[in-house]
């Protein structure tokens, strides 16, 4: 779907937080701070780390995500528009063959979900996904 101004209005009116794509989420700085703390300020690159999330979530209460982090020892997940951006930190043990984990998370509106992986060699990788969160026209 092309993001016309009209569409954006429709999306925003249906979202908890009216921060569409391109807008600066109100809590972005906090997520950045937390990522910097996790990485110790090290450079963050890209790699095999992947984050799968729906482009549009029907309800922000339960948004399914999957993180796959081959070669990582741990991965931290953040939601940059949530009041508290931390979502989860996952450490992978010796008996974890794929370093893949799926879970369901809460998003307080349209925002970016960010995964940061700490690799076995001490380097860091990052992946993110923009999720539009809608609320129905019917509270029902």
């Amino acid at each position, binding site marked *: *779907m092309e993001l*016309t101004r*009209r*569409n954006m*209005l*429709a*999306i925003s*009116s*249906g*979202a908890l937080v009216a921060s569409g794509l391109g807008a600066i989420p109100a809590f972005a700085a906090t997520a950045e701070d937390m990522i910097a703390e996790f990485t110790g300020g090290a450079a963050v690159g890209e790699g095999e780390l992947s984050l799968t999330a*729906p482009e*549009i*979530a*029907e*309800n922000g*209460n*339960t*948004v*399914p995500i999957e993180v796959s982090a081959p070669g990582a020892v741990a991965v931290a997940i953040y939601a940059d528009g949530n009041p508290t951006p931390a979502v989860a930190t996952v450490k992978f043990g010796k008996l974890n063959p794929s370093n893949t984990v799926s879970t369901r998370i809460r998003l307080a509106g349209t925002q970016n979900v960010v995964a940061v992986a700490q690799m076995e060699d001490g380097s860091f990788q990052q992946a993110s996904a923009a999720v539009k969160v*809608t*609320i*129905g*026209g*019917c*509270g*029902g």
Partner: protein
Amino acid sequence: MNKLKLLTSAMAFSAAAGLSGGAFADPDEDQLTINGEIEIVTETAAPEHLEYVDTIYSGWRFRSDETQAVQMDDFDNPGMIFVEAAMETWDTVEGTEGKSCASCHNDVETMAGVRAVYPKYVEAAGEVRTLEHQINGCREERMGAEPYKYTSGDMVAMVGLISMVSRGLPVNVQIDGPAQSTWEKGKEIYYTRYGQLELSCANCHEDNYGNMIRADHLSQGQINGFPTYRLKNTKLNSVHARFKGCVRDTMAHTFKPGGPEFTALELYVASRGNGLSVEGPSVRN
């Protein structure tokens, strides 16, 4: 797609028009099989009594792939948490008569097919009863136990359990004979505009299914999937609680859950889904 838009209160729809198209239109083409073994009919020819709809669809077909997936495996379906609790209740003795559900009905599997035919006219009661009414009838008359509140967690969980053992069977409520007058009353309610927004059930769920009501993809309002675990409130929701929410959203005083109006409406709405599979406990947004 453009269905009738004879709405006097079309404000809500017009705002969403920009989202229509692409993934947000007609029901999708996905097929529902639960646990890889229970085939669910989510699309079939409309029952003969429907004048304005040719094909009926389960609400499952209007949900996103992510929401759909949660219902495809009982382990993933959080509604089953409540059903599991009801399984324990099934075998638990309550009330003055020293009986549990199992004392009379044995294994819950013996209830297969029951969900599919309710609401129905009950001879002994001389009226159309819902499954909830029957559960409370058992509790009060056979068990000597306190009745559940109509839309309480205990009640909706028990309805969820009894629905689960009918999954895959076709909804088949009787609309003629002694049920006919109640059915006609329900039909009248379905087509009556209520509230400050002057909306009838039909305005959204017959005239505009497939369209967006703001950010919500309107379904046909079928109830074959009830009780429904909603992502919105993370619990099982009963038919009458959902009716109440809908009517409230028209800015009207609602009818009482368990009362004669919603019972009639439930029979009518259930009959609009005759032919779809029982699906409860389903998962919706």
